[in-house]
């Protein structure tokens, strides 16, 4: 039998941030209906996630971004405060679906590209209808089974 040590929660150290900052969730006017449902935020260190309110984690499904080192079942972290530029890996809305692609800017044409030698170069030839949701700051790859992830 394994004994789990349940200690006090670590105090907020300067090197750990919560996403988002669970500040005083106390409302001066109305008691928050969310009060009974609040959960601890997913914690990332400040050097990985410098802007917690704009940081969101995504599950990745599919292999079209292997060239960027992003694989099926990886986890990618988007920072919505980053400005997308030429070559940025982005979460974008394509045909009503969230997808991860590489942004290619040439002159005033924006395109979304796959990053996989087995696939055609471009997913979206002209990004007029599409919308960029956020810029991927980094991704995480599991080298053991993901099952049983506990916060």
């Amino acid at each position, binding site marked *: 039998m394994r004994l789990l040590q349940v200690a006090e929660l670590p105090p907020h150290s300067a090197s750990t941030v919560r996403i988002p900052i669970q500040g005083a969730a106390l409302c001066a006017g109305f008691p928050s209906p969310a009060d009974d449902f609040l959960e601890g935020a997913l914690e990332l260190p400040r050097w990985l996630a410098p802007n917690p309110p704009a940081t969101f984690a995504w*599950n990745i499904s599919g292999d079209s971004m292997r060239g960027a080192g992003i694989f099926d079942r990886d986890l990618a972290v988007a920072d919505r405060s980053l400005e997308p530029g030429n070559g940025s890996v982005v979460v974008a809305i394509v045909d009503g679906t969230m997808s991860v692609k590489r942004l290619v800017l040439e002159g005033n044409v924006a395109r979304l590209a796959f990053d996989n030698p087995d696939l055609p170069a471009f997913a979206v030839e002209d990004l007029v209808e599409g919308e960029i949701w956020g810029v991927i700051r980094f991704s995480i790859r599991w080298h053991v089974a993901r099952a049983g992830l506990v916060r």
Partner: protein
Amino acid sequence: MSRAIALIDGNSFYCSCERVFDPKLARVPVIVLSNNDGCAIARTAEAKALGIKMGDPFFKIREQCRRDGVRVFSSNYTLYGDMSARTNAVYRDFSPAVEIYSIDESFLDLSDVRDRDRVTLARDLRATVRAWTGIPTCVGIGPTKTLAKLANHIAKTIPDCDGVCDLTDPVAYDHWLCRVSVAEVWGIGRASLAKLIGLGVDTVADLRDLDPRPVRKAMTVVGERIIYELRGLACLPLELMPAQRKGCAVTRSFSRRITERETLEQAVAAHATRLGEKLRRGGLGTTHVSVFYHTSEHDRGDPMRSVSTTVTLPEATNDTLALIKAAQAGVARTWREAPGDRPWRYSKAGVVTTDLMALDMAPRALIGQLDRERSAPLMAAMDACNARFGRGAVVPARAGLTEKRTWSTKFEMRSPRYTTQVTELPTAHA
């Protein structure tokens, strides 16, 4: 420089939170339902255009929603609470003083911003919140909270404002106050509105120009205060520190009607467990626990019963086990088997305290002292487990395991907890 308060709030906040993670919800009508999927409590502009009203019971609009393609969600308070914390984190980058007024509204002190820069700052704030969190907002600015709230209403309803209205600007102030109905003023309810119409008050400007003293007679000191606030004299300060709680209640409607004593006992034990968590978070204790349970006023023709009783503890405590004992004593004292073969079908139960005090200041009992020295570490361990492994990971047996409760609030159409659960993150296709 003059005093300036901004009120910023999320547009159709709960619906907007759902839209951030699901692009298929863009430009389609979306509504969010209250606890137990009872009534509509948030609607997008598209849903409002279909005539769906705030508070419409879902069973009455279910067919219309199906026909008109309205996307319907149970409330996902975990998500809304997290998105609310994110927006407030952005607000704090823009103002040194932020009062979180409700889950989707905050007051910001902008007094240090030069008059002519306020609208620019408000537009920058809106754009930043939209970019960083995905939530669309509106900003109203005024010299008082009441005027900020009014400005927010104008920003929201007049498309030309583009989401920002500044009533610290004398031109805008003179323009809008004689054009907006007095019904839109913060704090004017149905009763006061009828009285004001009787006095010949029609617009906000009419109310502002009333003599406050006679109004005090008709509408109490609150009405008088509104008049001064509309004149730009601040009567309501920003509340940056939440006031010390005097009372605390945990009440829930059951997802089904309850007739058995064991189930009721489990429910009040679960409510008492939640009450204990809330008290411990504030370092508070209580000496009285009131328990109530009742049948539903909607069950016409069924036997009715409403019960409330107060149990006194020997001394102040926030020990969940002591609170459960008290709550169950309340049930034991009041439970009756129904005469005849028609049992009472209870729809709601709750535990309430009204005499909260700081536990470390509370006097100790001479007789019947509770064992605080042992209970405090036990409660701390339970709270630590629940913080680490999720709500309800460790519960007192009397409260029942969360997933085995048959009476818990229903959230049948709830979206994933996209931002707080590793197992429920949104998926992007590569």
